[in-house]
């Protein structure tokens, strides 16, 4: 898996919105079909600063057939977010937004015949950041409702644990549990990270 990860700037958001956004918008099943990263990026930073937290927006670049790198995944991770499993104290990283470029679009229009499994890589970034921040790899996320059951299946296949719909959420999350929250505890996170160690 030949990828690079960079910090996201307005240039990356603009490129994604202009080059991939219109193609993704026509794919009805995509939860991110109406996302504008150029709006999301500053908004997420500012909203989380108002909550005294920081975001870490990242871009995943994958190698094209010609040997150059192009943007293939985007994510915005909130640092030091309440851990979703209230039975255990502590904090985690929360994957607020993440998008993987459509593999057919990458192959057909950008000369990338073998796109990597980007969902796993996007989650791995959040896990490694969590481990290095002393959060022991704990992460959480909420599956966007427009992604339907397909998104739930995808996160399950990635190895995340689904929080039971009956489980309480941390009070500061200020949200009803709709059964679409996922998380990784320390053990799951280490297992997922180890699975990609050979590619680092």
């Amino acid at each position, binding site marked *: 898996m030949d990828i690079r990860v960079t910090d996201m700037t307005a240039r990356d958001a603009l*490129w994604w919105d202009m080059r991939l956004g219109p193609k993704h918008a026509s794919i009805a099943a995509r939860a991110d079909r109406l996302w504008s990263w150029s709006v999301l990026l500053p908004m997420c930073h500012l909203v989380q600063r108002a909550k005294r937290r920081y975001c870490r927006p990242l871009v995943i670049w994958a190698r094209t057939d010609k040997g150059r790198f192009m943007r293939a995944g985007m994510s915005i991770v909130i640092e030091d977010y309440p851990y979703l499993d209230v039975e255990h104290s502590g904090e985690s990283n929360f994957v607020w937004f993440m998008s993987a470029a459509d593999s057919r679009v990458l192959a057909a229009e950008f000369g990338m015949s073998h796109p990597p499994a980007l969902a796993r890589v996007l989650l791995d970034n959040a896990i490694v950041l969590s481990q290095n921040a002393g959060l022991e790899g704990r992460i959480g996320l909420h599956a966007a409702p427009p992604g339907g059951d397909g998104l739930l299946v995808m996160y399950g296949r990635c190895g995340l644990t689904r929080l039971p719909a009956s489980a309480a959420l941390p009070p500061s999350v200020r949200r009803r549990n709709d059964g679409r929250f996922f998380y990784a505890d320390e053990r799951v996170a280490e297992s997922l990270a180890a699975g990609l160690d050979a590619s680092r």
Partner: protein
Amino acid sequence: MRLDAKAPATLGAVVEAVAHLSTLSEAHILELVSAGRIEELFPFKPAAGVPIPPDSESDQDLVVASAKPLSRKARDSLIEASLPARSRKRFRTGTASKR
């Protein structure tokens, strides 16, 4: 509020929008964004006419992100870099009498 170059938002309007959004849960904001409604609450309009970056970059041109927590300075730089680059204003350093 329109956060664009021709009609810059007041600081108060920005603070108001951020203050309101910060009362919402992250999952709620995700839903609003996914429904295409975020611009109702945060009507940021990226500057028009900014050139689109090239589709690909060479390996040497990429600055790989640190996997460790960033310094406060680096975090602040990232926040600044989340906004489109503005054309640089020219400032004269002296008054006419000092030229």
